[in-house]
């Protein structure tokens, strides 16, 4: 045994060595260990880690850029914000509840809960809510807890301030809200993932699954689908309701379906419609369509604004009987629905456009993303309709049962052949059978992967007691179908999340009741560029971590000579001085591939008042990160903008992605914006000579506060400009122009 100098120093006399030797010579044997326990615990831990480390349980390349400084205790991130405001309305000074970074990062898709310990005038309190950055919301009360529900998921990486400033007279027997000081709650939302510079492959052989988690009690949810932005699930659940059929009959308990939004973690957020079923969200996320079963022989189709709770829904159609599937959105302004042997279209006011299609009764239908084409089953086979002209084209003869369009405009459908189901993909360049079953399996739902490279197909064996399963198959027909997750488990109606991070499905439990589950998806092989990006961003996050901790030496260790000189010359502060505003948090804001192994990483550093801990401003730095042998170093640094927090809307992320024919710049804001102020004039790209570039497409999605600019850019530098013409929903303009350097490098070509 090697001598231990510490023990030799501790026991200089020989009197103790007899015992020391005895202890050392008789170390306890390895304890008994159940090898299953080790693996079992690991499995449980990993499931928990995947569920909690990333707010959306994202795949590896989505999840890794979380800044350690921001990545808080998993448990804290997993719950909604619950702040007890003790006697808030009784106390003289304002009650401020700060949820500091590292303690209470709040998921972006969760409601905000503020618990009161005493009676309050609920109406007055609910009307007193003010949220910065400007955020549209609704409220409800759960007992003494005020639940503030943002209409759209909150922005990531953003410090929010929620103020309750009572303004109205109190209700009788409650605390005088008008005399109460404001309650202030501050919190920071979870960090956003940094998108990869190279999109990953969702081909069937590149996917693995783990961490299946049940997110709803048995029987609580009977169907689930994703919102287009992937931030929430739309679920149908049944609730008990007491109804009085008429004045002369007694009240009867009745189970009725309701449509709710739910976070991917299983928190019910908001009721979207009562006595409603078979929901479908419009592609732009603004409207919800659902069916109501009015009478045994009649159902009605309704449309409501997504922000609504269904009480202001518009009835747009009625049909006989109970439909067996949701209505099909055709674009975001029309709906197609089956009415016996006819497929009808209707707009959001209930006006039927002049197109009706004779279909196979009960046939499925699917519309391409922009709503120009509609696919359904007719007596001739799988048929495609031009919605504008009504012209049709038979894609394939036979009995087509299911249709799904990819984001790039290909149509997948299932044909029922005598030998078994066949999966076909139709594209402008032809039709191809990509899978077929000769065992009599039944195939149903089809779900395209986010990159349209593969399809997830729900399957069920031929025997009556076969349980539902699913498999992946590449959309080009290459390779073999790959079973989804464990083959001995049940997977009913599996659906990809829009970002490819997970798959939601139903599974019956031992009592026969369906339970909602979510499985995490992992992308197997990273591309070389992704792997390099992973390493580069890791260096940057470590660098930021060192700076926040005030560890100069560690921070400098990640700098090359030029960057080090920039900081040492006093041009930029590497760490903050005592008494100065301190670094509250920092994060990777955007990553661009300049050339192989060279990245431009923009970081944002948020400063807080050292006394109040309130975030007061942020600044950006553009770091050039370059591979030197086996490691990346920060070679150069350029200062970016500095912005005072709380003065109008701010940009929270910029992502640049290159396709062969164009580039797409995606800009996310922290505040709900006045849509009229978001235009090609207020947000644009300019080239190095100062000339504006003409975008080929400009889109604003108010639900995600995202502007997408598509343009054909050439190699070189551009500047993304966000002008002060952009205002939030409260009318506050951006405090200053926002500039962000966009690099189109050799790596983007």
């Amino acid at each position, binding site marked *: 045994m090697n001598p231990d100098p510490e023990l030799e120093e*501790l026991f200089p006399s020989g009197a103790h060595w007899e015992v020391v030797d005895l202890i050392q010579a008789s*170390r*306890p044997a390895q304890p008994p260990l159940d090898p299953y326990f080790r693996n079992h*615990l690991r499995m449980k831990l990993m499931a928990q880690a995947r569920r909690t480390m990333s707010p959306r349980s994202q795949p590896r390349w989505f999840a890794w850029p979380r800044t350690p400084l921001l*990545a808080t*205790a998993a448990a804290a991130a997993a719950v909604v914000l619950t702040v007890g405001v003790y006697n808030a309305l009784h106390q003289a000074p304002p009650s401020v509840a700060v949820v500091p970074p590292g303690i209470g990062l709040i998921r972006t898709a969760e409601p905000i809960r503020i618990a009161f310990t005493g009676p309050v005038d609920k109406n007055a309190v609910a009307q007193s809510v003010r949220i910065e950055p400007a955020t549209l919301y609704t409220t409800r009360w759960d007992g003494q807890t005020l639940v503030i529900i943002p209409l759209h998921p909150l922005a990531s990486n953003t410090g929010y301030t929620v103020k309750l400033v009572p303004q109205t007279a109190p209700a009788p027997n409650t605390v005088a809200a008008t005399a109460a000081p404001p309650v202030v709650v501050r919190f920071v939302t979870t960090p956003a993932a940094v998108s990869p510079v190279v999109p990953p492959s969702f081909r069937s052989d590149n996917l693995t699954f783990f961490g299946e988690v049940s997110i709803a009690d048995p029987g609580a949810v009977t169907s689930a689908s994703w919102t287009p932005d992937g931030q929430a699930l739309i679920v149908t659940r049944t609730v008990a309701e007491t109804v009085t059929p008429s004045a002369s009959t007694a009240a009867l308990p009745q189970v009725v379906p309701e449509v709710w939004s739910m976070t991917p973690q299983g928190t019910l957020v908001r009721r979207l419609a009562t006595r409603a079923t078979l929901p479908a969200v419009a592609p732009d996320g603004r409207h919800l369509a659902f069916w109501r079963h009015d009478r045994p022989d009649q159902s009605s189709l309704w449309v409501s604004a997504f922000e609504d709770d269904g009480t202001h829904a518009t009835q747009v159609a009625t049909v006989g009987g109970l439909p067996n599937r949701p209505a099909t959105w055709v674009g975001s302004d029309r709906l197609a629905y089956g009415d016996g042997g006819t497929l009808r279209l209707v707009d959001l006011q209930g006006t039927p456009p002049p197109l009706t299609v004779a279909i196979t009764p009960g046939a499925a239908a699917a519309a391409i993303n922009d709503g120009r084409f509609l696919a359904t089953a007719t007596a001739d086979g799988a048929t495609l309709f031009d919605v504008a002209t009504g012209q049709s084209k038979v894609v394939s003869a036979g009995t087509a049962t299911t249709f799904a369009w990819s984001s790039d405009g290909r149509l997948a459908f299932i044909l029922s052949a005598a030998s078994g189901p066949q999966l076909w993909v139709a594209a402008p360049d032809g039709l191809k059978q990509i899978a077929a079953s000769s065992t009599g399996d039944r195939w149903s739902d089809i779900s395209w992967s986010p990159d349209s490279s593969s399809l997830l197909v729900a399957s069920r064996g031929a025997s009556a007691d076969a349980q539902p399963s699913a498999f992946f198959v590449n959309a080009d027909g290459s390779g073999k179908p790959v079973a989804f997750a464990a083959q001995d488990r049940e997977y009913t109606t599996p659906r990809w999340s829009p970002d490819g991070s997970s798959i939601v499905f139903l599974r019956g439990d031992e009592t026969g009741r369906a339970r909602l589950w979510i499985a995490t998806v992992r992308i197997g092989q990273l591309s070389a560029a992704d792997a390099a990006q992973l390493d580069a961003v890791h260096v940057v996050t470590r660098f930021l971590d060192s700076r926040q901790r005030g560890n100069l030496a560690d921070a400098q260790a990640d700098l090359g000579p030029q960057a080090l000189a920039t900081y040492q010359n006093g041009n930029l502060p590497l760490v903050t001085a005592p008494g100065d505003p301190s670094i509250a948090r920092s994060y990777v804001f955007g990553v661009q591939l300049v050339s192989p192994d060279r990245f431009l990483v923009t970081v944002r550093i948020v400063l807080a008042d050292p006394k109040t801990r309130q975030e007061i401003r942020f600044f950006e730095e553009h770091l050039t990160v370059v591979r030197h042998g086996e490691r990346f170093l920060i070679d150069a640094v350029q200062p970016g903008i500095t912005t005072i927090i709380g003065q109008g809307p701010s940009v929270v992320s910029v992502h640049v992605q290159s396709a062969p024919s164009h580039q797409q710049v995606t800009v996310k804001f922290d505040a709900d914006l006045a849509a009229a102020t978001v235009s090609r004039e207020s947000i644009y790209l300019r080239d190095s000579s100062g000339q504006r570039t003409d975008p080929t497409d400009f889109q604003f999605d108010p639900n995600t506060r995202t502007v997408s600019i598509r343009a054909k850019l050439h190699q070189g530098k551009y500047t993304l400009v966000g002008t002060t013409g952009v205002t939030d929903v409260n009318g506050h303009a951006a405090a200053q122009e926002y500039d962000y350097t966009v690099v189109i490098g050799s790596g983007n070509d």
Partner: protein
Amino acid sequence: MPGGSEDERDLVDRAKRNPEAFGALYDRYFTQIYRFAYSRVRDQSLAEDLTSEVFFKALRNINRYTYAGHPFSSWLYQIALNAVADHYRGQRGELELEDATSGGTPSGAVVDEVVRRDRSRRIWSAIDQLPKQQRAALILKFAEDRKIDEIAQILGKSSGAVKLLLHRGVERLRKELPPLEAEAEVGFEPGS
């Protein structure tokens, strides 16, 4: 570097945001933590529970972990120690033993126990009977090969206090254990 290799710091860094890295940490430290837990409770099922608790707590709180010159395992040991303490908190055995033995009077029962068991079990059983801080210090030093600085970090004490615990623990064992001759009398062969 005082403790914790660059590789480990890197791994811990990544484990804050990457489940796979956390899994690697688990793989690296499971055996140590399980062994430590078992050494404290001598019950397989309980050791499993404690080990689970340690790693789930670590997962929940890993973002609060800051490198302070000690290996990551120190932090895990610290959690484990707290978990063991929580487990025993309120239970008569440990607290009473702590109280009963901290006065320094050798317990006849302790000696009896030592004499009764085989050599290895005797010395470690004797360690089991030490006041809990002494016991933790001795286990960490002799069974887990931790440095005194690390043990100080784990126990939340100064290095000097840990040295004192080790010294007192060994001194106490020396007094309570029968001399080697006595061991021979009960059929024990020294050096085997």
